[in-house]
């Protein structure tokens, strides 16, 4: 942090009004953040150790210990499916769209003919909401949609139900989610590559290295900060996934995800706040690791 007024002179320069203004500048946003995010988050963790139907008043909350967790692990049929799907989401994202985005960034960075066109095309899915994305892709994968038409499955019997078949739908959804993720990764990477010292390129070229070799051995390792962000973004997006499956079939029948189960336990037919809170807490425990990595990476040089 470069810009600082020396503390000693500053302290004496503060008037009473200045101190009040400073307090307001920091206090108002902090209060809002604590009231609407931090306190509810802590309360959710506490609620995960209680029984509550959410309908009765606060007096109907009873202490449950680890009962909710035990029940979810042993009785809740959708839970293992959701856990598996979230894990699959993460592995799939790490193996396919993330490397694809990095490789695309490498090619797009060459600024060949048509770069404006295809760069825009890859970015475009990012500005669509996930809800709209679900609807847009429905026209492609519906039983009478584009894919079935191209495959010649025009009759109702031969048409493949891409969203309805629990063995196929998660893969279709992962493909759709990747369609958005690739552009994001590519954008982050392109920005990172612009910041690389041109001398690195030149030195590698003089040594006779090919472009691709330079990218793999020189550019990629020098972008460790961007790489950390990409890992964090990928993990957090995989855990947060909600909108897309919710708009497709409310996250049922093969599309179970932790984020949707939380929602279903609170707003669904049987309101079980304890289960919802326990699931949300697990989601939190899974995402706290990438959050900590991110915070450490970002703020270590400031300390």
């Amino acid at each position, binding site marked *: *942090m470069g*810009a*600082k007024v020396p*503390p000693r002179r500053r302290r004496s*320069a503060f008037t009473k*009004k*200045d101190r009040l203004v400073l307090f307001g*500048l*920091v206090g*108002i*946003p*902090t209060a809002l*953040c604590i*009231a609407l*995010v*931090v*306190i*509810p*988050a802590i*309360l*959710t963790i506490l*609620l995960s150790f209680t029984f509550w139907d959410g309908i009765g008043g606060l007096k109907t909350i009873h202490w449950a210990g680890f009962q909710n967790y035990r029940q979810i692990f042993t009785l809740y049929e959708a839970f293992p499916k959701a856990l598996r799907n979230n894990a699959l989401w993460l592995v799939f994202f790490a193996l396919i769209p993330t490397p694809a985005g990095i490789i695309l960034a490498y090619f797009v960075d060459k600024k*060949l*003919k048509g*770069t404006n066109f*295809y760069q825009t*095309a*890859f*970015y*475009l*899915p990012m*500005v*669509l*909401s*996930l*809800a*709209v994305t679900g*609807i*847009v892709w429905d*026209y*492609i994968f519906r039983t009478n949609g*584009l894919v079935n*038409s191209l495959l010649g499955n025009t009759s109702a019997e031969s048409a493949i139900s891409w969203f309805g078949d629990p063995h196929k739908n998660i893969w279709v959804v992962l493909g759709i989610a990747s369609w958005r993720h690739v552009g994001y990764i590519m*954008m*982050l990477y392109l*920005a*990172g590559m612009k910041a690389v010292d041109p001398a690195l390129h030149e030195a590698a070229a003089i040594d006779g290295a090919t472009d691709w070799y330079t990218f793999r051995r020189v550019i990629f390792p020098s972008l460790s900060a961007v790489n950390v*962000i990409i890992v964090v973004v990928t993990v957090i997006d995989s855990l947060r996934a909600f*909108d897309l499956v919710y*708009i497709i079939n409310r996250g049922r029948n093969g599309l179970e995800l*932790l*984020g949707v189960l939380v929602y279903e336990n*609170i*707003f669904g037919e049987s309101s079980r706040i304890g289960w919802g809170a326990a*699931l949300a*807490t697990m989601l*939190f425990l899974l995402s706290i690791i990438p*959050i900590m990595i991110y915070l450490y990476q*970002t*703020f270590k040089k400031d300390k």
Partner: protein
Amino acid sequence: MVTGKKTVVGHAVTSAILSILGLLWLLPILWTLLQSLRPYGEVLRYGSFSWPKVLNFHNYYVALVQSEMWRYFLNSVEVTVPAVILTLFLASMVAFVVSRYSFKFNIPLLMLFTAANLLPPQLVFIPLYRMYLAIPVPSFINDNGVLYDTQLGLILIHVAFQMGFATFVLSNYMKTIPKEISESAVVDGATVWVHYSKVMLPLLRPALASLGVLLTTWIYNDFFWSVALLKTGNKRPITAALSNLQGEFFKDYNLLAAGAALAFIPTLIVFFVLRRQFVAGLTLGSTKG
């Protein structure tokens, strides 16, 4: 590097492959737009994969006027505009303090905001929902007299969540502004408020513009919070309203295509007009960190 024949051919092949990929990437959007221009009756008869005979804007007319999509779009504007302005304003305040003064709480504060931004929304909304049901508001805001099911409540949670990212980006940006500007302001006897509002805020304009574009897209596109915090269908912003309309349009997919297009066309326009700001906003947070 020597640019031989091989490289030239290689470049041509690469750019051809990338262009085809780009077309493929656009296909779902273009396909939806095509469907939105076709009458449902024709598609029902010949299938969606048939050469269109009639193309017109009838579906858009029905979606906008009969299904009152314009109302949902206005709802989106009413939520998005105040939420973005408030987020930028509050975030710039915190960013100003942590980047211009050396208080002990600076880094813990930035960490708090950043962490809050990264938390899964599901972790927050059970107690938040109950809090919103318990917080009283005047009846001109909500007939039921509580914060739940109001656009104000939706705005507040957007601000609370997005502030983290905005603060982080703005404080990074502010660190690149020379400290001499601040020093001379202090020497000239500027109060903290003048230092913030008259000296620093105008210098933040490019970063505020980039962030503004990005936050507008994110908040406009929100689905989770709108569905969770607004019960009344006709209060919902356009993105969330689409899921209601899915049921209504169940029989008429071409009308739904027009509805979806009406929801995403504004974001496409923002993207095409302000692409530079959009990209800058997203990458400001990642490269300077």
